[in-house]
């Protein structure tokens, strides 16, 4: 007797839970050849608002955790992802991201990327901070601090691209709201399952699926969002509109760029969402 297959419902990931869109909407996700894969939630602006609330709530705890602890949790995410290697490879292959072999390589590269960023958690302050020489009896120390809640529009590359924009934001202590790639959002939700089981506190990463043009402007204009990563915005007009909206509360903005995700990432994505705090401390007291 053949058994009925149990299909997964792809939902959103907000505050550590997997709710459906408040609007009740969904949209069909297809492979590049046009085969139906699944229905994904089509998030509304209110889901985006809820996600920002969740990210803000998670910020004090996550930014207050020791860098060592954050690094350990990112390693843990990498471990969990490694354990689900086959599942991710199959999902990527199904959604038309090359053959089985290319998909496996992409998953491996993603795990490596996580491990690479995890290692930076307790080193970025040494590299990006400084003990400044000043003309007076003071210690003058600059240290990088997380900027707050960062809204990310993820690039089209569904797994490696996604992790390559999320990991640098959260490793330094920011929390984020990610709008997953519009045509291929399924890997993002499967990744959310990994995050949910990796000791990553709920709300540090929130994943929305749906229309980029519908969600990005609301996040860009939101006064409780401190940073905006527009990497995945292909439409130049939308990017301009978002940048203009982001100026209202002086968000840190990362403009859309074409990136080769397999190349060495460098520390630019981490430092973009860091603020420098400088402290003067009298010597000899």
């Amino acid at each position, binding site marked *: 007797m053949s058994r009925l297959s149990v299909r997964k419902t792809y939902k959103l990931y907000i505050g550590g839970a997997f709710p459906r869109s408040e609007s009740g909407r969904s949209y069909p996700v297809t492979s590049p050849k046009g085969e139906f894969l699944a229905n994904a939630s089509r998030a509304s602006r209110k889901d985006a*608002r809820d996600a920002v609330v969740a990210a803000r709530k998670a910020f004090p705890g996550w930014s207050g955790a020791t860098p060592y602890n954050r690094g350990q949790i990112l390693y843990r995410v990498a471990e969990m992802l490694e354990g689900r290697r086959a599942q991710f490879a199959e999902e990527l292959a199904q959604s038309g991201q090359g053959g089985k072999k290319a998909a496996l390589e992409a998953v491996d590269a993603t795990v490596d990327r996580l491990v690479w960023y995890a290692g930076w958690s307790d080193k970025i302050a040494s590299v990006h901070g400084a003990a400044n020489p000043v003309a007076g009896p003071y210690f003058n120390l600059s240290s990088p601090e997380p900027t707050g809640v960062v809204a990310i529009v993820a690039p089209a590359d569904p797994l490696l691209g996604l992790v390559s924009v999320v990991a640098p934001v959260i490793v330094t202590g920011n929390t984020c709201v990610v709008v997953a790639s519009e045509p291929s959002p399924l890997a993002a939700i499967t990744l959310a399952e990994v995050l949910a089981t990796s000791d990553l506190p709920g709300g540090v990463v929130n994943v929305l699926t749906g229309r980029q043009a519908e969600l990005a402007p*609301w996040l860009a*204009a*939101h*006064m*409780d969002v401190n940073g905006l990563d527009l990497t995945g915005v292909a439409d130049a007009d939308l990017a301009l509109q978002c940048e203009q*909206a982001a100026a209202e*509360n002086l968000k840190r903005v990362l403009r859309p760029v074409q990136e080769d995700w397999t190349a060495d990432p460098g520390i630019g994505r981490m430092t973009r969402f860091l603020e420098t705090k400088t402290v003067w401390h009298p010597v000899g007291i």
Partner: protein
Amino acid sequence: MEDTALVGDAVMVSTMTTSLADVAASGATLRAFLHGLPGVDRVGADQRAATLGTRSIKTTAKAKAIDLAISMVDLTTLEGADTAGKVRAMCTKAVRPGGDAPKVAAVCVYPDLVAVAAEAVRGSGVKVASVATAFPSGRSSLEVKVSDTALAVAAGADEIDMVIDRGAFLSGDYLKVFEEIVAVKAACGDAHLKVILETGELATYDNVRRASWLAMLAGADFIKTSTGKVSPAATLPVTLIMLEAVRDFRDATGRQVGVKPAGGIRTTKDAIKHLVLVNETAGDDWLTPEWFRLGASSLLNDLLMQRQKLATGRYAGPDYFTLD
């Protein structure tokens, strides 16, 4: 469901009106009256409140509701760590909440800070309310409660928020509760008296209805749900029952009594749900700051943020509003 409840209440009221004046003649008559009130259908009340809570209020109606809610707020600080500076800052915010938002109804403080608050809001039309009578537990002698009230009134309080003796109420000593309210009311003079039922400690909805009637019979100008120190505080079903009580009381006696839910109302959505409840239960006679108040501290910022969202079209952030 609601219709049958209405009929029940109407019947009850018609049979009671004649004797309403002397129900407090003795403990026995008071007890007979309060226990003669119709029981509350718990499931029905919960469901009715939940249904009204789903009402969708948008755009211009929402803008109106937000401004009305702001004008009904009793901006409250009741912490052991309150200082004169903190109270002055809160009063400044009460008078000018921000932008062109209306001023709030009142500020609510402990008796020893009433003078500071009265000075800070003088001439603005914002009232000064003070909790009194050994707030929040109410565990003290009647002399202490009365002098606590007199202290607050002498310092310039326009409104007194007293707590009932829940211990006496729960053990059935209704006359003691009644007499305490009467004594505190006498000590209030011209000040309005709000009676806090502390519904979170009353255990049943029937008790909430009884305590509401008891307070109104004893001369309360307002009945208030909670101190804010006990959880659950103001829930929608409890407010619904109290609104039904003030409606029925006015039908029976012609005297209008106000309602103030307090504690646990933190979001604009909560506030608007309460306004819907007032409109649908007691009617729009109660939909003014004179007859309905919202006791809250963090609610005001959320109302202001929603107000700004409606005005600018972008979601507001708490970084741009004062800390409570």
